[in-house]
């Protein structure tokens, strides 16, 4: 990896001892994670380990109670911020289950969102023609069916089209931090490649990606710098991309038992020492 500039020594995302509950259930039980610009992190774990809770809480989805800990974005706590404020700061979540928006056309949705972000970045408004040209290029690069632009957001889209639409939004909105919540689930191999290409095109020194997945498969196409294993609400093991292969071969069970010790061995930041 290229040496980091001083600015890059501060993580763009820092999760500190995060405890999160939904109703009576504690889902995250002291999660730690540091992500710097230029890095791709994969957070892997079995069902119910808290992966989706983690990405949703970073994006600010309502319905979760943070009982302890903090989430810092560019050194600033974002816990008190609404989802739109977080988005305008540069956080993007590709949803596991993208929502259908009846009567709102995809193009209108993307344009409204982009305008909100451009305004927050102090950029001027794009004329409709400029926007359309810009969108056309982005869609073309992703092999995105132009007809889907005229349709209502995700309405009647196939599973693959919905996920592709999420990555198109990533490409158009160009955030600093992309959280991908099981973007690979339910995709056939061709769709997976398209989605992975989109993510790889986004990847760069001024971007960070946290990719949450159950399976190692997508990591064949998007090579992570770090892999973390989340079990029962804590990161129990962190390593390089090799760890994903180990998980592929052995499953998650072998990491379950010594969860307590393993968590300690990776230290408070969740980064491998």
């Amino acid at each position, binding site marked *: 990896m290229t040496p980091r500039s001083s600015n890059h020594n501060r993580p763009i995302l820092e999760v500190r001892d995060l405890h999160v509950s939904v109703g009576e259930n504690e889902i995250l039980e002291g999660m730690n994670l540091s992500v710097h610009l230029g890095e791709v992190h994969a957070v892997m774990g079995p069902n119910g380990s808290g992966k989706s809770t983690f990405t949703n809480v970073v994006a600010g989805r309502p319905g979760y109670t943070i009982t302890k800990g903090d989430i810092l974005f560019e050194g600033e706590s974002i816990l008190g911020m*609404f*989802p*739109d404020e*977080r988005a305008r700061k540069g956080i993007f979540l590709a949803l596991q289950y993208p*929502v259908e*928006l*009846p*009567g*709102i056309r995809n193009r209108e949705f993307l344009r409204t969102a982009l305008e909100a972000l451009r305004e927050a970045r102090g950029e001027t408004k794009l004329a409709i023609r400029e926007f359309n040209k810009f969108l056309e290029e982005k869609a073309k690069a992703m092999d995105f069916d132009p007809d889907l632009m005229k349709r*209502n957001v995700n309405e009647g889209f196939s599973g693959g089209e919905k996920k592709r639409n999420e990555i198109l939004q990533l490409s158009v909105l160009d955030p600093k931090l992309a959280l991908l919540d099981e973007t690979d689930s339910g995709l056939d191999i061709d769709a997976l490649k398209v989605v992975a290409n989109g993510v790889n095109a986004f990847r760069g020194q001024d971007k960070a990606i946290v990719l949450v997945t159950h399976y190692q498969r997508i990591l064949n196409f998007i090579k992570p710098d770090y892999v973390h294993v989340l079990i029962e609400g804590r990161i129990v093991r962190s390593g390089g991309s090799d760890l994903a292969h180990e998980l592929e071969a052995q499953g998650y069970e072998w990491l379950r038992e010594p969860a307590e010790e393993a968590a300690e061995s990776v230290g408070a930041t969740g980064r491998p020492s």
Partner: protein
Amino acid sequence: MTQTAEATNRYAEDFDALREEREEEPLWLRDLRREGFDYFQRMGWPIDDKRDEMWKYTDVRPVARTEFRLPDAPSVTPSPAEIAAMLPFDEDMSRLVFIDGYYSPDASRIVDADDASILRIAEAIREEETLVHGHLGRYSEPGHDASVALNTAFFRDGAYIHADGPLSAPVHVVYITSDHADPVVTYPRTLVVAGKKAEVTLIETFVSLGPRNHFIDPVTEIALGEGSSVTHYRLLLENTDSYTIGHVRPCLGLDSTYKSVVYEVGSGLMRLDLEVLIEGEGAFADLKGLYITKGKQHLDNLVSIDHAKPHGKSRLYYKGILDDESRAVFGGTVYVQPGADKTDAYQEDKNLLLSDRAEADSKPSLEIYADDVKCGHGATAGAVADEAIFYLRSRGIDEQTASRLLIKGFASEILDEVGIEPLRVFLEERTSSALPRFTGAEVAA
């Protein structure tokens, strides 16, 4: 119960007081009025022990227990300019205006009506008595329910359209209730007789000039002759302290088409009974509705489609946007009578809940007694909008803009069907301002 009895007495006093005035009316009409009045005296409102399954979700005690006064002739009349400012979509249309039940000739105008009579109903009873007699009260029978009974007994005036060919312009009927210190009741009555191959577009608008409680009890009967087509817009824009209980009864003859779009943002307590009869083969009913509720509004749409003849087709699509503690009830029934084979019917009701205190009750049902039919229904009692709002906000769109986009998008499926451009624009604007907490200006104020 005492209060109920008092209110019933008030109706009796009013009915007696009108006796002299009514002596000028034809005997058949006086009989019809008496039939309605007797029904109401006997049955009263469907409250307490008389409240049956049909009224399960809607309690009309507030209506039953208020002593509504029949208004005197209005002292103020909005000028045509004021009406145009309030309802800016009828420039090229015929317009009949009734204020507190009284016809307002100054505010009304008839655009050419070669093949048609566009009259106020009191006039039609004199000028086209035979035809009116043949239709009035035939579809909305005086003993249908309390609302029709009272309307029949008390209606003063209303709109009458009789067309034997395509009408060149839509007819806008405006029922205005002016501001009164005591609650008043009006009984708007509309009768449309569409002859063979006639084409009629009717807009009925209900508005209040003031914020205070009043009661509207409207009845609209529409007879569709062979091959005729009626497009019916119904705009309920009254203040949200008022009550509305009414009946709309289109009867579809052979190969006729009835299209309706109801738009409801007004009334604190509303019950509208839209009862469609497919009485000719091959008729088509297309019913759309959009209701937007806030505060403590309670809007109840009871829609039934009775397929009495084969090869009929009906489509029903109602959508609701509910905020605050408001409640919407949708009861949709499709009956397919024995012999009404090859019927094709579908109904759907969808609601968007913007508040977790709002409630939508959706009860679509099918009763099929014929063979070889294609019928279906769908309902989403109410998907809370949280998921969609979060999705939009997670892309950087602020909450108000997100809500506005969502409301506009949700409404567009119905409003896109409004074929009259200025009316559609008016309804889109009404929709975007219907829920003040999502319009930046009002929240900031």
